[in-house]
């Protein structure tokens, strides 16, 4: 086979299963690819060549099998992998090797998936560009001077630069979908509770959700089936069957499907090219037999504000455990300084500016006398947004909107303007607050850069996302990154 890194996950698995190629060859091809291009892309924080090849050998030896056995994957560095450094993009966890596997990690291993390494991300998943990684930004393979999205920019860039056919992301407020949108890849945020959070280093517990990332809709669905499903270790995990996502991805049927275009997610701040590609994508779906209407979700306008109270509040509590006592970074422990001083020095140097900003925001929002006005009020808005969704489901099957108002912007462009950065997620956050599934699918290019179509569905109706995504994928010519920077 000519170039193993250009195959889809489904093709790769099939070639390995039929012994056309060995899993070790596939893993080696991807490790070589990483060695060749990741110096420029910086998608990986840690590459585990030894572990990847060992796992590939187990597949070749017939110890592990399944629909994705032997397929390489890039794991976002927010998920614990036993004995493998897990930094969450932060200095505060530098050198920490978890003594246990996240449930997602364990399921991938059991399915014979070959984990190549851990991918770069905004520190603690707080950001939309990976520029807040303590280990330097990731570059968008479509244009290395631009952001790959965030927080899961390492995962999306690994896919778009053919360093891995599959990746895992996590989405608290768009961190799977926005990177997918700006790299022309597929990213799915499952229903909250659909994929176990056990071993996912928490940012905002009521919003965090791990999900599949891939270059094709079917690949994402295959990965979805591997990682999803009830886990008794996660109390918020849903004890229900996983929706038939692979069947939906294979069908791609949208005839008669009622699609609602969200009235509020358009207008000022939405780039013209993004809006055009979005409108065209909706027109294509209509031409395939979908019934398109406009739906108003009046409270979506408040989603960003509510999100920036709820997520930082939970983060301020979740990140309290990084105190230099038990693991990770410890600064200034000279035998003279008190515990408080060492903790303060460690947190001062270990957390980046954006993380500190959100800890302070959240601490303030939860504090006595402000709780009702901020955290309490945000929870009410969350309820109203949920009602908007529920009302929408009375008239449509899915909602659609652009995934992100812009294409990939240049590195550094929004670094000094947190609010402009936050607005990257204005379209993706409503689904996080509601808890239902949502996905971003490639919808063509604007000025040579990818645009994403976002599809949102009722809880546990991931199958509808894959149906729409597959339909669009078949109707639109695949946009392939030129990778002109490769020598």
């Amino acid at each position, binding site marked *: 086979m000519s170039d193993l890194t250009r195959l889809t996950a489904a093709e790769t698995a099939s070639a390995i299963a039929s012994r056309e190629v060995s899993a070790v060859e596939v893993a080696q091809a991807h490790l070589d690819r990483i060695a060749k291009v990741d110096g420029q892309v910086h998608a990986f924080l840690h590459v585990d060549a030894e572990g990847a090849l060992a796992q590939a050998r187990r597949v070749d030896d017939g110890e592990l099998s399944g629909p994705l056995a032997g397929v390489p994957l890039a794991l976002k560095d927010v*998920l*614990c992998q036993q004995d493998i450094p*897990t930094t*969450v993009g932060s200095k505060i*966890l530098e050198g*920490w090797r*978890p*003594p*246990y596997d*996240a449930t997602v990690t364990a399921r991938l291993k059991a399915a014979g998936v070959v984990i190549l390494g851990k991918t770069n991300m905004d520190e603690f998943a707080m950001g939309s560009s990976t520029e807040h990684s303590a280990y330097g930004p990731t570059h968008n393979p479509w244009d290395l001077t631009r952001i790959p999205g965030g927080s899961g920019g390492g995962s999306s860039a690994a896919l778009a630069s053919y360093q891995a056919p599959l990746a895992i992301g996590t989405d608290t407020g768009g961190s799977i979908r926005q990177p997918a949108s700006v790299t022309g890849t597929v990213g799915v945020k499952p229903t909250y509770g659909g994929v176990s*959070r*056990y*071993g*996912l*280093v*928490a940012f*905002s*517990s*009521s919003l965090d959700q791990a999900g599949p990332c891939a270059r094709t809709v079917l690949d994402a669905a295959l990965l979805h089936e591997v990682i999803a499903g009830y886990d*008794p*270790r*996660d*109390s*918020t995990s849903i004890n229900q069957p996983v929706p038939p996502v692979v069947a939906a991805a294979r069908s791609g049927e949208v005839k008669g499907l009622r699609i609602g275009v969200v009235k509020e997610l358009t207008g000022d701040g939405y780039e013209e090219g993004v809006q055009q590609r979005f409108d065209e994508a909706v027109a294509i779906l209509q031409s395939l037999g979908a019934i398109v209407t406009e739906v108003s979700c009046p409270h979506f306008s408040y989603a960003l504000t509510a999100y920036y109270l709820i997520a930082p*509040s*939970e983060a*301020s*509590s979740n990140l*309290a*455990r*990084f*105190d230099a*006592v*038990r*693991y990770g970074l410890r600064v200034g422990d000279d035998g003279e300084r008190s*515990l408080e001083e060492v*903790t303060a020095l460690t947190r001062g140097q270990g957390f980046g500016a954006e993380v500190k900003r959100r800890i302070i925001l959240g*601490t303030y929002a*939860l*504090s*006595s006398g402000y*709780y009702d006005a901020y*955290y309490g009020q945000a929870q009410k808005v969350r309820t109203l947004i949920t009602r908007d969704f529920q009302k929408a489901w009375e008239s449509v099957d899915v909602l659609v909107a652009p995934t992100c108002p812009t294409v990939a912007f240049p590195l550094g462009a929004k670094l000094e303007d947190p609010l402009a950065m936050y607005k990257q997620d204005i379209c993706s956050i409503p689904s996080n607050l509601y808890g239902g599934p949502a996905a971003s699918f490639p919808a063509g290019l604007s000025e040579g850069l990818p645009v994403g179509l976002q599809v949102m569905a009722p809880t546990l109706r991931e199958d509808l996302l894959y149906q729409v995504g597959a339909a669009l994928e078949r109707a639109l010519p695949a946009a392939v990154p030129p990778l002109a920077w490769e020598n």
Partner: protein
Amino acid sequence: MTAIPYAEALAEFEPVIGLETHVELGTASKMFCGCATEFGAEPNTQTCPVCLGLPGALPVVNETAIESTIRIGLALHCDIATWCRFARKNYFYPDMPKNFQTSQYDEPLCTDGYLDVQVKGETVRIPIERVHLEEDTGKSLHVGGATGRIHGASHSLVDYNRAGIPLVEIVTKPVTGTGAMPAEVAKAYVTELRDVLRGLGVSDVKMEQGSMRCDVNVSLNKPGQEWGTRSETKNVNSLRSVERAVRSEVERQAYVLREGGRIVQETRHFHEDTGMSTSGRSKEEATDYRNFPEPDLVPIAPDVAWVASLRAALPEAPSVRRRKLVEELGLSENDSEAMVNAGVLDVVLATVAAGASAAEARNWWLGHLAQSANAAGVDAPDLPITPAQVAEVAALVASGSLNAGLARQVVDGVLAGEGSPAEVVAARGLAIVKDEGALSAAVEAAIAADPGAAQKVRDGKVAAVGALVGSVMKATRGQADAGMARALLLEKLGVSE
């Protein structure tokens, strides 16, 4: 003098008390993970990613702990929530792995109950505000200093074995109207509560091991005036200390108030050795805990039918069993109250069930065994003697094989680990000597040794025979049948009664 005597203080001021009791549940595993809860294991051997709060780890609620908490609530006549949540209480402390405690804040499992207690023959109703569930913290050990306290220590070690053990907090409403006996009421409440919990089998309620701990709130006010500012005394870890803590705080506050001072709302630390408390952190610099609903756990919604079945299966309350004791066994109210306060109700009943009379069981557990327990610094039920063994000794006394003094020696032998009562009797050769021949020698010797007393008896002062009986008992190491010895002495001295 910086205190006013208790009775005097209470003649001048009205007390309001409140008690917060923490109880470690006796579940086999921790509150949010599967780790064991055994006391005294090697440090940090009963831990996992969850109770160490490792990044990414998530809690899962221990259903047995929920059940135990509901049963406690039911036993305290509380309303059981049909829907409630855990909350995060955020503060930094090195022995708390996540730097927040998963607890319950404004949505406790059980609310609004009461517990009736007997004090000096009077029934006092203690209103219960709430019963909620939370997780315990780890334990810090400060090394290198003289005191074991953090000040002066060179470093600290943390043991997380206790971290995550389910902890129930039982909070009273402010208790008013305790008049001249707030300390006695406080002690009676904690004692009764301990018996209720023991009866439920939800905890081993060992205050000395920390599985039951008390915080005591006290305020004083002039009659007819608003309640005073309260202090909260922590670290009150024995029944006796509960009483002492209230007593000393009443005396201290009365002095401050009489001198025209102001009571500071503060946390005070109780010292077992002195019986006094010292000022801790003042509430004015108190932490803002930023409580919010725990997003990692789903709400708890106890099924109404399940709660009803738990209610139906509750054991008899100690007060009910106590009444039975009084009614069926003919013990006095005073005795039963004394048994409750000494925590011996269960063992008294068990001793009766093993065949002893109520009076004998009472005498043993409130008498010699209570003294032995006091001397050993343990609770009487924890002494190394079983109710069946006490009944066995009582039977030996009833059959005339042992007298009271010998019986005490047998019991002491059992307590000393010498074996069962029968074994101690055999090994020590403790049995009443009824053999006339064997006694005669001792009787002759006693008369010979004390001719003066013998003469008095001969002269008609029969009471003087007591001294001679004493000599016989002494010579036989208490094994003589005292009645027989007396009769023999009188016979030898030619006196008849």
